[in-house]
């Protein structure tokens, strides 16, 4: 189990109850648990949506879509049942934020799911955990059972006359089902491949019903937002990026861990102050700022605020908040290889550019790293990645192409250093950070 970390720079909102035994329902209640949902029942749907919109909360899965707006897209009237779906298929390398939520504050996920259900008029929520989080499922299942035992879930919740049920489910171990429509396929018991959009889940989602699907961190933020008020939450963050976010700082830093920082927090500060700087006294070479799919930043590019807009301007993405710090003893070709190996392994195979493209990228980069590369390979790597970008069925193709383009663009010299039978200049280096 990862240890909990704390840093004075943190702003504790979502992580407020971490380390306080809030997985126990009574402890959770003692820490203001299940208050937000009762307030929500009292004040009604319009109030919930208004608070959510005011909070400026944007989806924590990586795409950053405003949550309040997403909820308001769900049709009021529907012949089919509406569903709330919690995406806990946290699989992006470098990302471990949902993990700590499930571990330390599972009831926040349940409460957030209930509030989302109230907001869209759904009676049923699903909490979907990645296959590898099976051990967290026990915690989540116990939390759900405890909530039922207290009468918080099931018929007539909190005397409101509203029924709400929650079901938990794990995947079978596929990154692809982190994509929302593939997750729905998986949840329905089918092969985890994405669906054609439109229709979007808000209209036709799980089992054909209108569905709100939110990242687990997004959902867990909801009770806190209602407790502190949307505007107060928004003020914590930066412009158009409300609130805080759990950042997972990993790799070559002194104090790796999951830290809750306000949106817009400076990346350089996050690494050097919060993360305690580069480990082993080495120098920084590069940072993958938001999970392995986000384009790499060089050491000179990290003086930038951690929010969706500023990261976009810097030519990368905030992504899932998984900051991977890479020191100067790391081979960037091997890092690129490790990254593409993941995407090649996880490609669902549905569409040609991703299925074939990731495989050829893996083979080519692997050969370059092993010393078998020729000059045209470097252009080929870029050509392959650029021809995948924007051409695939789902964003996973982009997730593989974007970092690859970043590596070959910003660290082409390191690729060149491997060509023509030359051994890897970092052959004695440790394993790359991203394992």
């Amino acid at each position, binding site marked *: 189990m990862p240890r909990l970390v704390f840093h004075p720079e943190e702003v504790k909102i979502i992580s407020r109850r971490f380390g306080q035994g809030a997985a126990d329902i009574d402890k959770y209640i003692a820490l203001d648990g299940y208050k937000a949902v009762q307030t929500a029942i009292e004040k009604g749907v319009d109030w919930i949506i208004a608070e959510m919109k005011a909070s400026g909360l944007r989806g924590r899965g990586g795409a950053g879509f405003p949550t309040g707006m997403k909820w308001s897209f769900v049709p009021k009237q529907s012949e089919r049942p509406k569903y709330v779906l919690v995406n806990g298929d946290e699989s992006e390398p470098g990302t471990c934020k949902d993990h700590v939520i499930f571990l330390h504050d599972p009831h926040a996920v349940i409460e957030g799911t209930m509030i989302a259900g109230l907001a869209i008029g759904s009676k049923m929520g699903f909490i979907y955990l990645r296959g590898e989080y099976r051990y967290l499922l026990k915690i989540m299942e116990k939390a759900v059972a405890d909530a039922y035992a207290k009468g918080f879930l099931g018929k007539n919740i909190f005397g409101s006359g509203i029924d709400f049920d929650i079901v938990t489910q794990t995947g079978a171990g596929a990154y692809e089902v982190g994509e929302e429509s593939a997750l729905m396929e998986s949840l329905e018991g089918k092969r985890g491949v994405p669906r054609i959009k439109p229709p979007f889940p808000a209209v036709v989602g799980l089992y054909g019903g209108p569905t709100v699907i939110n990242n687990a961190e997004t959902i867990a933020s909801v009770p806190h937002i209602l407790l502190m008020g949307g505007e107060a939450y928004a003020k914590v963050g930066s412009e158009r990026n409300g609130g805080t976010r759990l950042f997972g700082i990993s790799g070559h830093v002194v104090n790796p861990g999951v830290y809750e920082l306000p949106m817009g927090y400076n990346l350089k500060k996050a690494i050097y102050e919060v993360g305690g700087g580069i480990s082993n006294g080495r120098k920084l070479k590069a940072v993958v700022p938001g999970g392995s799919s986000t384009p790499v930043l060089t050491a000179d590019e990290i003086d930038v605020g951690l929010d969706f807009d500023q990261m976009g301007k810097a030519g990368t993405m905030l992504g899932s908040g998984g900051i991977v710090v890479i020191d100067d003893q790391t081979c960037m070709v091997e890092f690129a290889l490790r990254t593409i190996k993941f995407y090649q392994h996880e490609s669902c*195979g549905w569409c040609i550019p991703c299925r074939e493209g990731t495989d050829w990228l893996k083979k080519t980069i692997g050969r370059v790293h092993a010393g078998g590369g020729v000059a045209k390979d470097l252009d080929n790597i870029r050509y392959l990645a650029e021809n995948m970008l924007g051409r695939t*069925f789902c964003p996973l193709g982009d997730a593989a192409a974007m970092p690859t383009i970043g590596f070959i663009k910003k660290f082409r010299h390191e690729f060149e250093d491997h060509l023509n039978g030359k051994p890897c200049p970092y052959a004695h280096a440790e394993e790359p950070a991203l394992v």
Partner: protein
Amino acid sequence: MADVTFTVDGKKLTAPAGTLLIDACKNAGIEIPAFCYYPNLSLQAACRMCVVRIEKMPKLQTACTTPVAEGMVVQSETDEIKQARKATIELLLGNHPLDCPVCDAGGECELQDMTFKYGAAESKYIEIKQHREEQQWSPVVYFDRPRCILCYRCVRVCGEGMDVWALGVENRGVSSVIAPNGQDHLNCEECGMCIDLCPVGALTSGTYRYKTRPWEMNHVATICTHCGDGCKTTLGVRSVNDGVEIIRGDNRDKSGINGDFLCNKGRYGFDFANRTDRLTKPLVRQADGKFAEVSWDKALDFAAKKLREIREAKGGQAIGVIGSNRTTNEENYLLQKFARTILGTNNIDHHRTADYVSFASALNGKSGRTAGLRDTTSAPAILLLGNNPTDQHPALAWNLRSNVRLNRSRLYVANHAEIKLRRQAKSFLQIPQDGYASLIQYLGGNDGAIAADDNTTAFRDAIRKEESLLIVFGSEYRGRDIQALVEFGLSLPNTKFAALGDYANSRGAADMGLLPDLLPGYVPVNDAAHFVDEYGATLPTTAGLDLLQMFDAARNGDLAALYVVGSNPVSRYGVDPSALKNTFLVVQDMFLTETAQLADVVFPAANLYEKAGTVTNTYGDIQLVKKAADKAGVRTDFELIVRLADRMGADPKKLVPFGRGSFADMGQTRGAQSGEADRHAVWLAANHLEPKLSPFDPFATLDEIQRLVPSYHVSRLELLTGSEQPEKFDLVQIQPAASRRDLVLPAEDTLFTSGTLGRYSGMLKDIVESHTTPNPAETAAD
């Protein structure tokens, strides 16, 4: 839906709202390439070939998933798009074996075509290609896995189209592979649709693979000889030293009434034509009781002389004629004309698989009440009574499934068995095997006719609420039951009917008067004035013996001669061979069947794939058959009838109204081989040329049929182009017989059998065997 206007490549186009961009473009003559897109199957957007640039959209969009919208501005072939497509092909070719020179699909491959178009000619990769061993999944389906581009067409057509669901995807990513439901083999209906839709050479056909190159074949679109649906099948043929052999059957020409569909028989069941044990020389039984091969002249003279002697000595009533369910309309018509005007007998019949006579009688001349096969793809509500189309009418079953799937048509099924189509049925009613007549009474309002429960009443209520109903009924309905069924149907606002019979020209055999009491067009034999005028000959006016009566007569010594054309009644009706010992038996067939073995003279005959003419499917769609194959030594039944008549001293010109005043050409002057006259005829007809110069020209006879049988008035052009008939013809008016003998004997074929003919197909036999040998691994499974 309302039309919307949009722009593609600067062209203003209009299409109904909701049309997919890829289809709208295709209709306007703009081709957008795609591997995974296939009309009427679910959308995949997996191949990314159909990407186009749509204004105001940040990324390239897939045309296969984008419905056209008002004001949409589309670029379909810019440099950016070409590059995207080229890159996709490069990726595919990375692992695709470039074994095009030996690949079955070489020359007919969509990947080849696209590579040619987008010029992905440079090999970008050094690593070796992924290789996997080829697999045989069934006697007819082979899977060459490295060639597969994962377009999922096979998976979808098997599941969505066939409702078989025998294919799926195993593994993921670059290891993804199409896999059959039986682990290493298929448990399926062997339709071969997966092979048909495969854009590359991944799925290959057991009957065709590695036999030839596509460009070495001629492709002849004709009509399948097997069941009564009358699907168009395209035969790939190639010259060999004893004629023209068929190497492939498929559905590359989707213009037939079967649309996208072809079943296993249409696709693989042609190999009987190529068998080495086919008869190619006439056989005459010698004094020692054994057959001897003799020349055509000798055999024809012998048979003609005997028939003439018997006619003169005993009269026509001592001669019987049995026709075929698989010969053309022209041959059937000619056979009855030969029987009636030259043999002087009404003793003519055929193996009846449906009671078309009672159907005609029940409709009694009402127009617009029969449904063509295509109607089953669009009728909003269909009542299926009896039969099991999945086995006996695969194209109908496909249409019904597609109609329910694509048009949300309502299918009502009543059957004594839980047939597979109940899965598509809105409502299914299981009735006792003898309950079909009572069901009609019940549907008509007689509450006591069957023990009704809620399901039954709901079934009846739903049917009676339909504003337009197509009733398709099997041969469970005969005689008075058909009368009752049609009466019930006509009591509803707008009903059409289709009667299901079993073979390629079962309907045509009845329509053309292979019946002891009815002339072509169901005209009673005692009402033959029109025919007498046209033929310039007298016709016997009393009804003759039916098929069973003929064998009774033979047994009693009252049938001196029997002429059997393309039929095997001895096997079908279990006739005791001794019954025929005093009967002079002439048989025309491809093989030495049980019937032919008893014959005095056997003429080697051509099959439906070796001749031209027309056939009528069980729905009444009249279609052109074209000569595709040829076998040295055989003659068409048409030619044989004419030659027999000629040698019996009849005027061939009166039999076949060819030439219109010109000189009778029996073909000898041109040294004609079998079938040549047919080819000639097709050419002449196609060019609207008269007169027909040969007495072997079936189209001269079609002219006469059209003069005498008003319902066969179909445009010759429609026939030639194979397009839909402009009007569905109707059965003509006949008086219902007071009591008609029930002579219907359903063929009871399964999906893989086809009467006597099917027994001569090695591939169908293999399929049957593979389906009857239990697989130990599966006995536990469902």
